[in-house]
């Protein structure tokens, strides 16, 4: 049994001696990996050696990525803002008109002991009318009223971290009290804001896809020019037995580098945007009595941006190479 196998091995060695199949699989793989490394470095050097031409492509990619990136950053901040409003959503509990102030105060006491309530405030009908008179500018008109049309109100503030379901349970609980006429949760505008934000998100997607196509075209065209500049080399490589993958490789890496550097530049531009807007936004928020500050793009989002840029660069190169490479034959 061992003899035939030995013979076979000897035969293989012999027949392989003068022909091509003399490189083992492992060696072949390490050569393949080494070629990837070599090509990656070579293509980067090639790009850096012509910084002006490369910069143009990099900047186009960077700007095309900065636009959706900036919108993304804005949206992220708006969501943070709306979240904050949602957290501070107050519940107004209107009591049946004509309720006695002492009963109202007693009810406030009971409500303040409920779980899911962090603070309460009782405003009786008279002080509600006073407030309205002072703030509305309808002072003279209100003089004609014989009765106080306003109900007494208990303002209920849930804790900041209350969940939606808990909040709804609290509302149901409050409605159940006999003295309570109606309960209003100031959520409608928060929901409206959220609808606007989801629309904006959709818009970012549309814009992002359009700009991604633009990046594909830009990289594709740049790679097409790179291929045209290296037609002789490609012809010779194919002549001496270079596979299509081998010929494609440097161009794919070039696309990858275009995407990566463009993505990094976009990141820098977004940081620059943030630096420029951070202080004015802070001042504006302060004028509205809010502690809101503009957050930069998170590290995770920046990574996604970078990876998307690399993928787009690679895809653009692939598209261009697959279109033009077959035309070049020795």
């Amino acid at each position, binding site marked *: 049994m061992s003899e035939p196998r030995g013979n076979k091995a000897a035969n293989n060695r012999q027949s392989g001696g003068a*022909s*091509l199949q003399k490189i083992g699989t492992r060696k072949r793989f390490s050569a393949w990996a*080494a070629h990837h490394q070599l090509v990656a470095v070579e293509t980067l050097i090639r790009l850096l050696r012509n910084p002006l031409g490369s910069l143009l492509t990099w900047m186009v990619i960077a700007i095309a990525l900065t636009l959706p990136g900036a919108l993304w950053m804005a949206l992220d901040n708006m969501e943070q803002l709306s979240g904050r409003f949602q957290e501070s959503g107050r519940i107004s509990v209107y009591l049946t008109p004509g309720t006695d102030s002492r009963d109202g105060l007693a009810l406030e006491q009971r409500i303040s002991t409920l779980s899911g309530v962090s603070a309460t405030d009782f405003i009786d009908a008279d002080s509600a009318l006073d407030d309205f008179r002072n703030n509305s500018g309808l002072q003279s008109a209100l003089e004609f009223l014989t009765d106080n049309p306003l109900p007494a109100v208990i303002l209920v503030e849930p804790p900041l971290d209350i969940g939606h379901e808990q909040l709804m349970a609290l509302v149901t609980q409050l409605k159940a009290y006999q003295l309570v006429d109606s309960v209003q949760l100031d959520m409608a505008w928060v929901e409206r804001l959220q609808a606007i934000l989801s629309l904006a998100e959709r818009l970012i997607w549309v814009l992002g896809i359009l700009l991604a196509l633009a990046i594909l075209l830009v990289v594709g065209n740049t790679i097409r020019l790179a291929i045209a500049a290296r037609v002789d080399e490609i012809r010779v490589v194919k002549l001496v037995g*270079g596979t299509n993958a081998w010929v494609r490789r440097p161009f794919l890496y070039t696309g990858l580098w275009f995407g990566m550097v463009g993505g990094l530049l976009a990141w820098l531009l977004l940081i620059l945007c943030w630096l420029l807007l951070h202080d004015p936004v802070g001042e504006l928020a302060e004028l509205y009595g809010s502690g809101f500050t503009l957050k930069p793009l998170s590290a995770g989002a920046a990574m996604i941006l970078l990876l998307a840029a690399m993928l787009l660069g690679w895809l653009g190169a692939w598209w261009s190479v697959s279109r033009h490479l077959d035309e070049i034959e020795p």
Partner: protein
Amino acid sequence: MARSPGNTMVRFDQVSKRYPGGKEALSGVNFELERGEFAFLTGHSGAGKSTLLKLMMLMERPSRGQVLVDGLNLGRLRAGQIPYLRRKVGVVFQNHQLLFDRSVYDNVSLPLQIAGYSPLEAGRRVRAALDSVGLLGMEKRNPVELSGGEQQRVGIARAVVNKPPLLLADEPTGNLDPELSAEIMDLFMRFQQVGVTVLIATHDIALVERLGHRRLILDHGQLHEDATIAGGQYV
């Protein structure tokens, strides 16, 4: 000597090649080259010499007939297999097709890089190939700095560096003076002596007659053996 299939390097079976536009470059060509054989391919310009060589590299495909190289039926090769055929066939061109944006070393090592040799092994082989064409020590030069004859030798070194079993040359001495031409031919004959099958297309009849090897003559797409030395007596 019997011609067993294992002994045949190249075989053309009723091969015709018609280019789009109707011009028939080759019509019904039949011939065989045995392993280790040395032959010239002659004929007037436009007789189909380049076409015949291109068919062996699959730079062209025949309109009719079969081409076999090293036992491979080229008609059955898929596009993805063509590179592996070309690694078995070294080619030398009249205009040598060197890349002037890189050194002599990088030009010659290109086929080895493609075939996946380690830099160490490739280095050994490149130096051996350059040594065999008498250009050792010129690795770092750019081909532009070299003379026409030297450039042609770099092209030959690149063609043989991967030790292909078949070596083709298309007018390799077309631009060279007679003395340099003789030197280049001498080189080819030395490769034949180490077992390489060599086919050289040339119209330098004087040189061919002086060297006296097997001659394939193309005339308007038809192939004839030279009657005086036909028969493949070099095997």
